[in-house]
């Protein structure tokens, strides 16, 4: 069997790629996509532990289901906000949305 550490390592790599995307990409759609990648990396961890972890049981898979649910909801709302934002501000460039300042 593939050692669990490899799954964890893969999840870490994907998580970091997603994080980097969130922090640097200017296209809001891609920022959202990066968030999805991060959520996925978490799911990999959960499922891996659920299947081949030291205390393998079903809970990890149930949790990953919840996460998928939340991710779906998040994607839906996020994209809705994105569209509303685009309609109001005519841009989906993250840099241009800087109202959140002092």
């Amino acid at each position, binding site marked *: 069997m593939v050692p669990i550490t490899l799954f964890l390592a893969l999840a870490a790599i994907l998580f970091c790629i997603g994080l980097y995307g969130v922090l640097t990409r200017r296209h809001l759609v*891609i920022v959202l996509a990066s968030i999805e990648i991060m959520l996925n990396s978490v799911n990999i961890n959960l499922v891996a532990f659920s*299947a081949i972890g030291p205390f393998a049981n079903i809970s990890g898979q149930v949790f990953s289901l919840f996460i998928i649910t939340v991710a779906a909801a998040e994607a839906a709302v996020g994209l809705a906000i994105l569209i509303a934002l685009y309609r109001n501000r005519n841009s989906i460039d993250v840099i241009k949305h800087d109202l959140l300042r002092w």
Partner: protein
Amino acid sequence: MTAQMTFFIILALIAIVSSVLVMALRTISHRVVSMAFSFFAIAGLYFLLGAEFIGIIQIMVYVGAITILFVFGMMMTEHRNIGFGPDPRKIQQVVSFLGVATLLGIMLYGIFSMDLPTTPQPYVGSVEAIGLELYGHYFIAFLGSAFLLTSALIGAVVIARKEADE
């Protein structure tokens, strides 16, 4: 090298490379497609781990629903305009890269220095087991996620629809 290992490496490489491509490609539609590949590869990993149900859900929700959602999002916004011009935030990128790399380093170091035993025979969660758990132990949470989905549905509609008086 076992077949499992081979599959794992292939799938992992696909996931990583396509994730990187999501960041790196220029055309927005290519990026979304690349993202779908990544999701797909991850679904494959679930199969590899014997979690078929999650794998199928992954394909259905992520590859099916969310990717399509992204495509719609992409199409309804600024998809033609590829670049935003030069990025004024070089420092942001560099620092982000360094920070994330550090984080990754720490995590990998931790993961590999940890002596985690791997169950030789993977636990296979049947759909039945998942269903029992979901409707039993996690029933409240399940209901909660139902509410979440409903409100997300309504919320998304409310937010995204054109203002009637505009």
